[in-house]
């Protein structure tokens, strides 16, 4: 009797699991629950705090926090630096990794070894990165030494505008290999006879690249851009550990600003800054989605 009930219940679940939506929610449940508790709810709470005058016993403050935030000199500096950094480094990363992938996809020896050496920077620990960074860009570092051969006097690189470019270089060094692998895979997916047909029809190399290679790499590019944006936020760690809470003006990022607001317990400004940053990221992502969709239709 008991066994029969158990079997029927099991069959019931099995039938229920065969329906897509029910199965989907069941499979999603652990992820969605944890995601809600640790990401979604904290995010919504953060947005709420940004409209309150005091996080613990909140009175509604409207846009006052935002007004104060936008009036803050250091926030504006941090926001424009973050924007500048992503706007320069992500396209640079795209061009560099696509270029290297095209070369690696050509006729070369030792392809496998080269590929490995390009990805290995990913595993270099932050501590090593910082030491090497210092060896090269310090006042007494290798770069100044090399420049002294040409009679150029020393520069304290991390305390000048050049710090910005140093951070971009470290970002490119660390992440280029990962993106090269992504592009390489995309390139290998393009059917060879497309190029042959294009050649027969008299399309030049540039034309082939522009209307076959780039079009076919759309989805790969979308993925690379997303990963590059994520990783561009991650360079903050190296910058922070090297230059501390208040680095040179040119590399003072939104993360520095938020960190400092956290330390000084200015929750209103921190959450308002976070909300604005997310709006910015959302605009970029939706824009990318739109672009990708249009290109895909173009392909079909």
């Amino acid at each position, binding site marked *: 009797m008991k066994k029969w009930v158990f079997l029927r219940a099991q069959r019931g679940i099995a039938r229920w*699991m*065969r329906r897509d939506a029910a*199965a*989907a929610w*069941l499979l*999603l449940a652990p992820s*969605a629950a*944890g*995601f809600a*508790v*640790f*990401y*979604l*709810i*904290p995010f919504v709470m*953060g947005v709420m*705090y940004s409209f309150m005058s005091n996080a613990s016993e909140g009175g509604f403050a409207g846009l006052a926090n935002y007004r104060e935030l936008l009036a803050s000199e250091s926030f504006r500096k941090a926001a424009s630096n973050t924007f500048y950094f992503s706007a320069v480094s992500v396209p640079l990363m795209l061009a560099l990794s696509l270029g*290297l992938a095209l070369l*690696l996809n*050509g*006729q*070369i020896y030792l392809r496998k070894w080269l590929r*490995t*050496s*390009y990805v*290995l920077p990913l595993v*270099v*620990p*932050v*501590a*090593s990165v910082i*030491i*090497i960074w*210092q*060896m090269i860009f310090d*006042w*007494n570092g*290798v770069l100044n030494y090399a420049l002294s051969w040409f009679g150029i006097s020393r520069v*304290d690189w991390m305390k000048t505008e050049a710090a910005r470019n140093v951070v971009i270089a470290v970002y490119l060094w660390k992440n280029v290999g990962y993106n090269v*692998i*992504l592009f390489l895979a*995309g390139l290998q997916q393009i059917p060879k006879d497309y190029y042959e047909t294009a050649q027969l029809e008299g399309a030049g190399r540039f034309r082939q690249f522009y209307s076959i290679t780039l079009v076919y790499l759309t989805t790969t590019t979308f*993925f690379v851009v*997303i990963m590059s*944006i*994520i990783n561009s*936020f991650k360079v903050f*760690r190296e910058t922070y*550990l090297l230059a501390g809470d208040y680095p040179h003006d040119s590399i003072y990022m939104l*993360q520095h600003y*938020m960190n400092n607001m*956290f330390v000084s317990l200015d*929750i209103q400004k921190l*959450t308002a800054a*976070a909300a604005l*940053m*997310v709006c910015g990221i959302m605009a970029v*992502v939706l824009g990318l*989605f739109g672009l*990708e969709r249009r290109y895909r239709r173009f392909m079909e």
Partner: protein
Amino acid sequence: MRVMTTIHKSLLTLLLGLIGLLLLFPIVITFTNSLMTGGELLINYGTIGKLTEVTATGADTFVNLKWLPDKVTLAQYGELLVYSPNYLLLFWNSAGLVVPIILGQTAVAAMAAYAFAKLSFRGRDSLFLVYLLTMLMPFQVTLVPNYIMADKLGLLHTSGAVILPGIFAAFGVFMLRQFMLHIPYAYIEAAKMDGAGHLRIFLTVIVPMVKPGLAALVVLLFVDYWNMVEQPLIFIDDPFKQPLSVFLSRLSGEWDTVFAASMLYMAPMVLLFLYAETYFIEGVQLSGIKG
């Protein structure tokens, strides 16, 4: 003609090889310097961080970047492994944070990714967009509410405050979904015909097919969480419970052990990477082809 191609091929290989060497330079330097004595390192790099131009003896103060040690010694490794038990404890702490995160996130994400990639339900695309958005946010964005949440759940100052958010992070879902989009529906239909439910299909059809994706995810998660600094720094305040990454990040002035410490720290990542390399590269590649 043949000769021309060979020359062309060699030149291109040489160019790409030089770029490769440039990328590998920090790893090589870290390795060779880990075999030097503390005294030698101090002479080479002692002037870093000081704004002087000339030493007391009149020599210039530039760092002396050296490829090869004067005397090869394992003294740095000995110092760390034999004389400072603290180092091994921190190593263990790191493993205690990273292993549960990797196992947890891979399992939870694989199930969710299957739902997002292969099943249809209302609100799927908008929910996925939400996942995608939070994945892009830097850690600082939800710092305060996260802190309050951890406090409410009683997780503050325990490793749970780092592990649980790690398990439910969206990256694994995103990556595995990309991966599962490649699997043709025909496989799922065939399994359905045989009377398999979605759980069976997931375990016996999908999981074996996305092995490269799982391998790639494990490597990427390992690198990411082995290197995390901010989260343990804020959520775990007991220095004896913190991972190696936090300890290492403060070590940059201590020339006598920092290179060996970096090497030991890097070792698990490099080994895992080389072990899973074929899978990893295949996995990373497939995740990016179809959007």
